[in-house]
């Protein structure tokens, strides 16, 4: 006889209070990894083990985990770019209007990732570099996070120097962990108060096929503590260029009250007040668009395991022409809290995520239809629901709005010139 039969049993290998407090407040019971568990919030290393060919094991119907087995198709910098490039080519081949290009050969609707090369393709990169020798490029290790290992270059000699200095003498490295990508650095970011910032948005995916994703309304902007300058002498100053909190935290000016963070509603208020409503709405529409497109790009290759859901941290930079760029997607967005506000936000984020992923807080059945009622969404709003988009008529516009203090409005005609009806199906 199990008195505790009704309670969800949880495990985690991430010791963060925002997680644990949420489990405890639901009355769930903590168990060990080798025991019978229903819910496991795992780190990305652990998910690799669970689904690996050698050490992996089968999950039963009443077990849920917080990552998709091959999430790295989206969350590794090189694979994300590869999948998006593939997706675009496929659309082009089908003759889809989404893949339309302009007179310079740039995709009109799908150009949202800065030009990126995977470093074994050194020659292709050099060709591109020589076309615009005054550009700055950013080197990023594929498998690392928190701004580790990133640096900027604006001369070919700097790459050569790097490759000489690093242990591997060629760009083809033994383990894929050391692979690098090199992307065009966005050196005209939108500045506010003279400071550079990026956007962190949380996106929950409950299933890839059909695609069902939710966007958290309370994203935030991360500001660099030091004034932005595109001057080449400051290329080495990581405080100027990288907005990762992990890096900014160590700068002299880091403030522990606001943590250099602004809410997305502040951003919206500022942009509406200084730039106008139309361009602001267009910007936020585009942000939603690129998130959905990135998910659609990886959906075909994702292992849509029914035991899985995932909460991603999207990093987006806005340039001074108000165009958003997708920088990367994080599988394990930081759950560390740098300020009191931060702690509240992340606590609520996990809370709302659990409400959607584990309906009613009861022992899950992974066969459920993954369609939570509207009331439990909390601060999430539906970003894209493929099933609904396909079944409903053309007059149903399901794009989530980042409804901030200005309020979420009803259907609004899309004015960006994209073919409205066909794109969302």
């Amino acid at each position, binding site marked *: 006889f199990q008195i505790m039969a009704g309670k969800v049993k949880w495990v985690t290998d991430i010791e963060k209070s925002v997680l644990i407090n949420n489990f405890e407040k639901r009355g769930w019971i903590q168990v060990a990894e080798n025991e019978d568990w229903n819910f496991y919030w795992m780190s990305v290393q652990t998910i690799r083990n669970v689904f690996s060919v050698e050490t992996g094991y089968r999950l039963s119907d009443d077990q849920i985990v917080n990552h998709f087995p091959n999430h790295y198709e989206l969350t590794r910098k090189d694979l994300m770019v590869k999948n998006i490039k593939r997706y675009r080519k496929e659309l082009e081949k089908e003759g889809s209007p989404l893949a339309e290009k302009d007179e310079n050969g740039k995709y009109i609707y799908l150009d949202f990732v800065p030009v990126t090369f995977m470093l074994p393709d050194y020659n292709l990169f050099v060709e591109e570099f020589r076309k615009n020798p005054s550009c700055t490029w950013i080197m990023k290790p594929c498998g690392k996070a928190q701004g580790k290992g990133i640096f900027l270059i604006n001369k070919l000699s700097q790459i050569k120097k790097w490759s000489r200095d690093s242990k591997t003498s060629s760009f083809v490295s033994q383990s894929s962990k050391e692979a690098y990508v090199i992307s065009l650095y966005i050196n005209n970011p939108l500045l506010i*108060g003279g400071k550079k910032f990026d956007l962190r948005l949380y996106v929950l995916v409950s299933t890839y096929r059909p695609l069902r994703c939710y966007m958290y309304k309370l994203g935030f902007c991360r500001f660099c503590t030091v004034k932005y300058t595109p001057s080449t002498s400051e290329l080495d100053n990581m405080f100027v260029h990288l907005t990762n909190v992990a890096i900014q935290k160590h700068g002299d000016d880091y403030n522990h009250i606001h943590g250099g963070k602004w809410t997305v509603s502040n951003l919206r208020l500022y942009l509406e007040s200084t730039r106008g*409503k139309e361009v602001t709405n267009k910007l936020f529409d585009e942000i939603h668009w690129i998130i959905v497109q990135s998910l659609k790009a990886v959906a075909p290759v994702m292992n849509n395991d029914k035991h899985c859901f995932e909460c991603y941290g999207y990093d987006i930079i806005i340039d001074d022409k108000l165009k958003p760029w997708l920088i990367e997607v994080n599988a394990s967005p930081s759950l560390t809290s740098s300020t009191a506000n931060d702690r509240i936000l992340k606590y609520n984020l996990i809370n709302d995520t659990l409400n959607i992923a584990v309906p009613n807080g009861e022992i899950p059945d992974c066969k459920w239809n993954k369609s939570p009622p509207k009331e439990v969404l909390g601060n999430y709003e539906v970003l894209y629901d493929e099933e609904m988009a396909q079944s409903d008529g053309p007059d149903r516009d399901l794009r989530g709005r980042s409804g901030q203090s200005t*309020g979420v409005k009803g259907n609004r005609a899309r004015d960006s010139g994209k073919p409205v009806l066909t794109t969302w199906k």
Partner: protein
Amino acid sequence: MLDQDSGLSLTIARIVQRLKGSSLHSHLERQARLLALMYNQRHRVRKKLAGFFGCYYHCQVSLHKPEIKLESLKEDIKDFLKTSGWEKKLQNAVYSELNMFPSPCHPAAPPEHMKEPLAYMRKAQGSWEKRILKSLNSMCTELSIPLAQKRPVSEQKELLNKWNEMGTDEPDLSLFRPVYAPKDFLEVLMNLRNPNYENGEQPSFRNHLGLIQVPLKVKDIPELKEEFSELSLNIGQLGIDDSAQVPPEFFENEHVRVGQKVLAEQDSAAAQQYVRQGSPTALRADLWALILNISNQPEDILYYEQLKSNVIQHNLLVDSLIYKDVKLTASNDDYYFVFEDYLYQVLLCFSRDTSVLEHFTYSSATPPKSYIRGKLGMEEYAVFYPPNGVIPFHGFSMYVAPLCFLYHEPSKLYQIFREMYVRFFFRLHSISSHPSGIVSLCLLFETLLQTHLPQLFYHLREIGAQPLRISFKWMVRAFSGYLATDQLLLLWDRILGYNSLEILAVLAAAVFAFRAVNLMEVTSLAAAEAVLADLSTLKVMPLLQIFLFATVT
């Protein structure tokens, strides 16, 4: 009592006098001269125009007319002014002046009466100023820092380079203290007494139980309802009727359309009326500029640049006070930390702006004087210190911070702030009997609370938590730093719309009313402060509307 006509002509004369010195006048003159150059009849035109409008405008009427008909000159000029848009600009300028100045008093009244009619208030303000100046001077002596000093050339260069990122500077400010904080000012206000007024009665429910004990006239709720009639329940408001649940066709769309029309017409008076119902975020920057009559002309930009070079060349002691204030307040604020550098750029220039001295003609305050070293008391060696006559206090930078959400161009931001200061904010830290002065606001707040929430008022008083002790800082800062920015801007819309700060007192009372249930349960000042510590989730318009129009009185 002045009769209508002489009152009107006094007003006209005063406005004309002021406009003659304005940039509008020089624009018109320049424009007219350019046109008049095309014709040789300069002199004759000038003579005819001398009497027109009381001002001296040369205006060539129409480029198509080969010669000027002197008979139709007056009408032709009127038409020209209308079609060229100058009439509107003139109207806006006149309207702006009317807003700022009190109605003319008796022609025999001395200038102090324009500043402050009540003698005891003037005296109290004078004493307060002496205290502040003493405090500033003693800080100066203690730290052996001169009030003003020319910067060495190397320092000037460095500052110029760092102009856009003064926030990264880390000067040692540990020895500086703010000259005063709002609570010091409250103590002074509490001790204000009218020597001509003897209230022999014992304190009772009939009397005023609050901290302010001067008999100024403040409005009651029926009068406030009339004054703020556009906020009533049956009129659409931004901040209420634009929320997510309300379809925009009901109010918002039409309101935005009207706003765009007002902007197209460039009519200050219409804009002022319009924002009483709130301003759409996308139109707010332009509407406020229209109401405040700020157009950011080249000469305004030049003026700002001149102030900037003053900052570069000379170091003032108040600069350190400004730095300290920004570091203590805005830099730690969730909403405003981003704009830290803009705040320095505005406030340092503000301190050196002598045009701000003009507002002392209608403010009860008088700019502090300082003397060149060694020449104490000699009037020829007196200068106003700081040059703009305004000594910043703790929280002063929060007057500027919200404006950074609207204006990202430094010279425009500067002008908007300066205008807001000389129209409104100066009243929040000077002692006067003006209905928008802080004393009246405090009394209005306390009276509203005592009249409409007597139980709460009495309870708080009993536990040693006089409500004004908590709400004073909100009102002095016009709620900046206490409300969420979008709510604050909706509130400041109404300050501009009604040309009055009374709404601050009404909102303060409304906040207490909103949290009354919790406040009734507290047993100490600290606990009361805690209940009212966080106003960032409040929606101001519903609170105001309910308090004014939906509370049973």
